[in-house]
């Protein structure tokens, strides 16, 4: 795992910050590492912070959707937080509505929703 993408435990969730210069290999590695951590630490949620992501393509969109699917199977909800307007528009244009993820404006919002859950 490179230092570009970090996974930290925040309350009862894993916070994953995806950086803008993340490569395809790294994001695939992330999937592996993250699924192990979810199972080991028994968290209720996964928070994907993509606020520094300025460009998305179908690959990144699909990986996010897959991450959400994996977490769901391991009994954790996935929250995507901090999506930029341009990224949202692009994903919609690509037809990737990410129905399996929850979304929140910021980390704070996601954490408060997780506490309520």
């Amino acid at each position: 795992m490179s230092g570009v993408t970090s996974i930290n435990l925040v309350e009862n969730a894993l916070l994953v910050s995806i950086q803008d210069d993340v490569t395809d290999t790294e994001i695939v590695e992330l999937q592996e590492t993250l699924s192990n951590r979810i199972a080991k630490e028994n968290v209720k949620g996964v928070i994907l912070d993509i606020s520094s992501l300025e460009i998305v393509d179908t690959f990144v969109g699909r990986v996010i959707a897959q991450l959400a699917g994996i977490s769901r199977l391991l009994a954790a909800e996935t929250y995507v937080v901090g999506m930029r307007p341009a990224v949202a528009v692009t994903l919609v244009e690509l037809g990737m509505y990410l129905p399996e993820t929850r979304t929140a404006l910021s980390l704070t919002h996601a954490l408060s929703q997780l506490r309520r859950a």
Partner: protein
Amino acid sequence: MPQTATANILTILETDFSGVVEEWLGTQVKEGVKRSDLFSDSESRAQNQELLKAFGKGVRAGVVNEEFSLEDDAWEDLRAVLADVSKERVSRGVTPTEMATFVLALKAPLFKRLEAMPGVEGGKLIRDVLMVTRLVDAFAIYTNEIFIGERDQIIERQRQEMLELSTPVVELWDRVLTLPLIGTLDSARAQEVMENLLQTILERQAEVVIMDITGVGTVDTQVAQHLLRAAAAVRLMGAECIISGISPMIAQTMVQLGIDVGTVSTRSSIRTALSDALQKVGYVIKTTEAS
């Protein structure tokens, strides 16, 4: 004898210029296209004189071996005068038919004078008439093109203005935004609206957005598509979207068109949408004790 195709026309224009102008005006009156209600007599006369002068200049220099093109430099004067006249007439509400008839009315006085010319008859007369017809027709077609171009510019300007003033995002309450949509929602506007909305969500950290379509006249599959895409983008940003102002009529149309709104909430009025939105961000509306 060696004579160019336009010699007789030029002779007419040189010897009887004001006569042609007067008769041209007369024909316009007869055809009912002079629009005395919009232009005074002296104004019309001045316009006609200017046009005819520029036309004569074009005929003199711009016709070679019976061939000509109004795009050539020789016709520059006519183009300039026409641009002015057309602009003037568009802004005063002259119709395209009136504009074309106005130019075509020039044929009658020219024909009459050709006919009266000594030594012009039979095949020669027909050739001259043909030349005049071609020139005046080209003149009329060009006029209409300028006329339509002028109108297109007006339409484009208005479209631009509409685009600019029609996408206000209003903050109703803490973290509650509303987007009152009015008029038609085409792709360009939908794009503009969506970008504007998402940016505002980011700036105000809004949690609920009410898209009100009370002012949208018709909802077809395309408009619905735009709305739902905007709603999807809003959700991806982490906010929630309520579409309000769905009239019974629009509800029926949407079902008949088979439009599935999915998980987006819809409300009939902005009133219920607002109370829902406030609840979502943790407020309730209460009547005061006194009432």
